């Protein structure tokens, strides 16, 4: 049987795995980077976690500004994914052969034609896959409509019992490492005229946190991994920014300038992060109540207290002015503009089918905040339903898996065969798989 390999090639990580019938299976997540460590070794990004020393790492990524420019790096990472024993994909081994394999690949929106051409050539000429389909990650989400419905379930449609499933209209918010895209998908096709972009992604948020910590507490300008870990473990999206600030202020006053040990617990707004001291920890960790009980002398640890950083970092997505970036719209205005650049009839339908994918939606409280803010700007009679999966990073991959397992006949129609590529050339491939914006 012909296997189907699915690669969600994001600018931060590669999500890779064979299509399976088990729709809940999560793919492998491999960091899409090459790292130069402090002792000047070059290693693959995925091996960094096993490398104990995370300080002073420099990243080189195949993606620059969401465009896959450096194929020599990307090929190394793919080769590792395909062949190594760590993942056990064995693309060239154990009876597997790319010449008898389908490939579903995702790419970034608005990839330059020259860069797309490189990708197509590498796929067919270097690896030689039998057939190949490529689209942006968000375009796969409607295929996963059963799961999407489950995600919305907490806030049902109003207006009686006849719950119609409007799976043909889907608004996808893809907030990744490089930038955030709002993508309307109508009848399974991306409505390119409505696609809007916000130049804030995970890298920006990490950079902003790095700047804040470096200015206020310790110099962490070279500790990208540490700062990223801190961001992932401590940050959350506030329901109301000003209220959170006020709450924090009250707590600061209550605790005084030097809080006593034990006065900060899991319920407080302030968190404590144990920094790497290279005696007890080399990576740093978040101090929780459980850990505080087990550790004998907390004073020995080098602790950094985080105050408003916890919620002002994610808040930058909604209001870039926090990072003193003026004349840029936040997420809500971008979503609003995207909805309003779609045909008028479709707008309410799009609003009731919003799915969020991408790593930034791992911040807790995102769903509630989005719901609240969208309600403020959109007409009252529109039902706003937002779905965020527990693991929004791999949700795009899982949706692509739905295409491969449930709709194989559709894949047959969409894909480009290798024989077609050699016969009709790259122009044919691009006509079928390329970006379909007018004037692109």
């Amino acid at each position, binding site marked *: 049987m012909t296997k189907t390999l699915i690669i969600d090639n994001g600018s931060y990580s590669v999500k890779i795995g064979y299509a399976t019938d088990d729709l809940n299976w999560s793919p492998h997540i491999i960091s899409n980077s090459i790292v130069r460590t402090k002792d000047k070794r070059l290693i693959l990004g995925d091996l960094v976690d096993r490398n104990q020393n995370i300080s002073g790492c420099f990243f080189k990524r195949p993606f620059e500004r969401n465009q896959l420019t450096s194929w020599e790096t990307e090929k190394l990472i793919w080769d590792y994914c395909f062949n190594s024993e760590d993942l056990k994909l064995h693309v060239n081994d154990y009876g597997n052969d790319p010449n008898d394999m389908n490939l579903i690949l995702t790419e970034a929106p608005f990839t330059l034609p020259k860069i797309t051409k490189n990708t197509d050539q590498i796929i067919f000429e270097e690896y030689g896959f039998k057939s190949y389909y490529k689209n942006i990650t968000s375009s796969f989400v409607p295929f996963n409509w059963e799961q999407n419905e489950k995600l919305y379930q907490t806030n049902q449609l109003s207006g009686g019992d006849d719950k119609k499933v409007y799976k043909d209209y889907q608004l996808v918010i893809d907030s990744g490492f490089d930038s955030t895209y709002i993508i309307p998908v109508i009848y399974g096709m991306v409505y390119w005229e409505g696609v809007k972009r916000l130049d804030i992604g995970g890298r920006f948020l990490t950079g902003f946190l790095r700047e804040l910590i470096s200015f206020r507490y310790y110099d962490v300008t070279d500790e990208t991994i540490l700062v990223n870990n801190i961001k992932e473990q401590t940050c959350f999206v506030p329901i109301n920014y000003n209220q959170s600030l006020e709450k924090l202020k009250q707590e600061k006053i209550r605790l005084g300038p030097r809080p006593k040990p034990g006065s900060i617990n899991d319920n407080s707004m302030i968190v404590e992060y144990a920094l790497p001291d290279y005696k007890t920890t080399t990576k740093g960790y978040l101090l929780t109540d459980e850990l505080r009980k087990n550790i004998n002398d907390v004073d020995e640890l080098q602790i950094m207290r985080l105050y408003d950083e916890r919620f002002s970092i994610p808040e930058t997505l909604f209001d870039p002015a926090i*990072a003193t970036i003026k004349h840029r719209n936040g997420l809500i205005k971008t979503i609003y503009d995207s909805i309003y650049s779609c045909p008028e009839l479709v707008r309410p339908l799009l609003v009731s089918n919003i799915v969020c994918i991408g790593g930034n939606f791992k911040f807790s409280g995102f769903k509630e905040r989005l719901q609240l803010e969208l309600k403020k700007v959109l007409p009252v009679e529109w039902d706003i339903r937002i779905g965020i999966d527990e693991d929004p990073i791999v949700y795009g991959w899982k949706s692509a898996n739905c295409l491969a397992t449930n709709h194989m006949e559709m894949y047959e129609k969409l894909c480009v065969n290798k024989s077609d590529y050699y016969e009709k050339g790259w122009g044919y491939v691009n006509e079928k798989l390329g970006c379909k914006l007018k004037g692109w």
Partner: protein
Amino acid sequence: MGLVEEIPKGSDPNVYFSSSINLKASKSMYSSSNTDQTRKRLAAGSYNFNQLEANAHDSSLNENLIELRKSAKRHQEIDRENYNEHQVKIELPRSGLHVNFKGFVSDDYPIFDLINYSNNVNKGANSRRFKQGQTPQTRKILISRKTINNYFDEDIDHAKILKGDDLFSKVDNNSSLPGKKLCSICGSNAPNRCVRCAVRFCGVQCLNIHKETRCSGYYG
């Protein structure tokens, strides 16, 4: 009265010269009102239209442009993964790395180095010269070290769309929504501004830190 007046030689063509015969503005009058030292002094009765117009209409637009550029620069500054990006550049060898990863188990290599690993593999039994890329086209792709700016330069039309206004949501400059008033040092609510540079601060402590470190000393 058919008086013909000669325009002084070497006068600026941008400057409109009108008759100064009936003008009786004394020098002292100018100097008392005009304290701007940098302004170019013009002959009596002449007006620089470019400058007048700029003063009347464009000043707000100019300010906007400056702020936009400032924001873009600031965005670039934050939006970097490696802070000292210009200092370190990671380059892979042009001839390519002979790394196959077949049967590779990362636990076997606690201290892994791509370059070392590829050299070792090259030394082994499979010592024939490693060729990067199966076909001429793919070899070209794998050897090329183009950066994103090279691609943008080659493909100006598409780059324009990518940077253009259509892709981003339009900014409403006249929006009356108030921004957040946050302290530039600690991030809490701040009603006050620094007297010298108009950056917000929340209290005396933060003001002192601000004065020592970030105060640029001028408005704007």
